[in-house]
């Protein structure tokens, strides 16, 4: 029987589930759109894992992404890790000599600066989603282009249009303006890719020492137009890891593996957890003027955890 380790990355746009083996090699990956229903999507993903690997034992599990706490309670994670560390661990496992990681996901983008295998600096987008995947998604819909063809179309253009990419709303109006002007879609798409990269580098990459080798990951790394724009802007070749779209989950799985090995056991609830019934209730605490939104996660009638309160009055977690 092989040993497998589970990693789940619950992001705002997608939920990624991976299994890795003892050698950190990926054996299974699933990319699901979160659609605002993280619990259902986790169950849906775990169900598929159970159907294929139902007889194997999962020896460790960890979660990452903005929904990491929720996911960890449901699956019984050995470790809950932030996205930055998870991405860095995954990239370094793939190539230990990288110095820079560019990551663009659905609503997040990050840059991680690494020297000698150690994270020395990082940044995440703060106030604006103009440089992220959902922005591109939206513009593709507006242009009537499938997002998967977006990159190839961009490569066809020889004469990109300059689009104001500082802000998603302005970029959109600027793009409409260029359309009305009569520019062809390829040129607009390439212009958009360049605008996104410019925005990313000036916003998130601002003041960071971007040194080769550079790795680019996250859902947007599927887009050849963006890769090309990064290469011409940075003057360096960009490395795309084979599983660029699930690097966060892979990192989590590796971290979970190490944790489980160190502690000698796993907290994982087992693959049949998808059969259980989970529910989340939210309520506003009226104890003081902070009006915290408290969340309560239940498995059937049993309360698994409560969180979201500032004072700890409701915080509660069943210790297994």
């Amino acid at each position: 029987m092989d040993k497998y380790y589970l990693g789940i990355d619950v992001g705002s746009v997608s939920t990624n589930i991976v299994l890795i083996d003892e050698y950190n090699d990926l054996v299974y990956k699933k990319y699901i759109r979160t659609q605002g229903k993280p619990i259902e999507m986790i169950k849906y993903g775990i169900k598929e894992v159970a159907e294929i690997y139902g007889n194997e034992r999962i020896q460790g599990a960890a979660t990452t992404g903005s929904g990491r706490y929720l996911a960890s309670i449901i699956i019984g994670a050995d470790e809950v890790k932030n996205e930055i560390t998870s991405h860095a661990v995954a990239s370094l496992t793939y190539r230990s000599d990288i110095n820079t990681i560019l990551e663009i996901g659905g609503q997040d983008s990050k840059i991680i600066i690494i020297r000698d295998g150690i994270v020395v600096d990082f940044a995440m987008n703060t106030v604006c989603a103009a440089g992220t995947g959902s922005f591109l998604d939206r513009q593709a819909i507006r242009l009537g282009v499938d997002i998967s063809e977006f990159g190839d179309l961009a490569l066809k253009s020889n004469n990109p249009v300059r689009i104001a990419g500082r802000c998603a709303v302005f970029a959109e109006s600027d793009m409409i303006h260029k359309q009305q002007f009569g520019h062809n879609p390829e040129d607009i798409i390439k212009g958009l890719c360049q605008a996104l990269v410019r925005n990313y580098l000036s916003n998130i990459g601002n003041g960071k020492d971007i040194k080769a080798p550079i790795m680019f990951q996250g859902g947007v790394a599927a887009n050849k137009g963006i890769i090309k724009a990064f290469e011409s802007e940075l003057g360096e070749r960009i490395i795309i890891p084979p599983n660029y779209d699930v690097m966060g989950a892979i990192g989590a799985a590796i971290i979970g593996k190490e944790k489980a090995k160190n502690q000698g056991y796993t907290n994982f609830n087992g693959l049949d957890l998808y059969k259980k019934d989970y529910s989340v209730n939210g309520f506003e605490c009226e104890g003081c003027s902070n009006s915290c939104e408290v969340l309560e996660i239940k498995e059937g009638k049993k309360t698994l955890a409560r969180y979201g309160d500032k004072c700890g009055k409701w915080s509660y977690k069943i210790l297994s």
Partner: protein
Amino acid sequence: MKITFPHLGNAYIAGKAFLDELGHEVILPAVNSRKTLEIGSKNSPDEICLPFKLFTGNYIEGIEKGADTIFTVGSCGPCRFGLYPLIHKQILDDLGYSVNFIVLDAIREDFLDFKNSLSQLLGTTSLIQVTKSAKLAFKLINMTDNLSQLSNYIRAYAVNKKQVNKIMDDFYENAVQSFGANELINIINKTTDNLRDVKLDKSISPLKIGIIGEIYTIIEPYVNLEIERKLGELNVIVDKSLTPTKWLDHHVLSYPFGSKYETTKFKLAKPYMVDMVGGHGRETVGSAIYYKNMGYDGVIQILPLNCMPEIVAKSVLKRVAQDLNFPIMTLVVDEMTGEAGFMTRLEAFVDLISKRNEGRNTEIG
């Protein structure tokens, strides 16, 4: 005179006891909350800094509870803070509240003015009386600051971090209900004992992180999303570069020379910043270097969105981080700040430092 004042971190606790002693009726505004910010944002200019909006909220909440006098500090410059009292008075007048403002401006600007305001507050003109009361106030502020610092230290080692939070929450609750300096001192002593009884995990070797930036943001837990607690729960000992104690020491007790601690920071900042840039910009740069020299593992700068002096400091800090090979992270907060992203950054920063230290230890070993 029913007196109220804006929140400045934990200063309200000492402030209340001090004013109790002077025989004023103190109307404490509710602790900063979402509601305070909503009221404040609605009645403040949109582009103004975050502290202004919270002050507005504090004043209105205080007035609605019956306050007729507002006590605050000002000064002409060196940042927008100096203009707060003037604009606030205007806003409150426009809203139809008629309240009396007692503003303590910097001593150097006009000593008589300073003394008059103080006398108005204290209800006496005797310099001896004023000095005596000021000493008491300073003692109380010092004690509450020391208590917060002790809780930060204990939290980093505590087996159960929530227990420390609970002790401190109880302290704030009891302190507000107490009357006068003696009662407060008793509560502080009792809380200190409770903190010392917390079970510690000696196997934890905590990181040390300094919080630097403009004073309001780093001492007001609602604004900095309780960064001290969040870091403490990640086994980090937190120290703040500015506290009411340090501020008073520099601006009042050590007048006109400034406290040793602050002047040291100016000296440290000198290679990067010769002059002041307003607000606490120069202090922020100096503090980063100060913490490095004190053997801290890293610093976090917190700034309220669009705070000019801190933005200047932020760009300078990049150089400082490079030159000293010292981890510095900047976090920007405003009323739109999401807690999830904030937490992710803190966790990643702590991971970064631990990994760095691991690397260093193996090199030495």
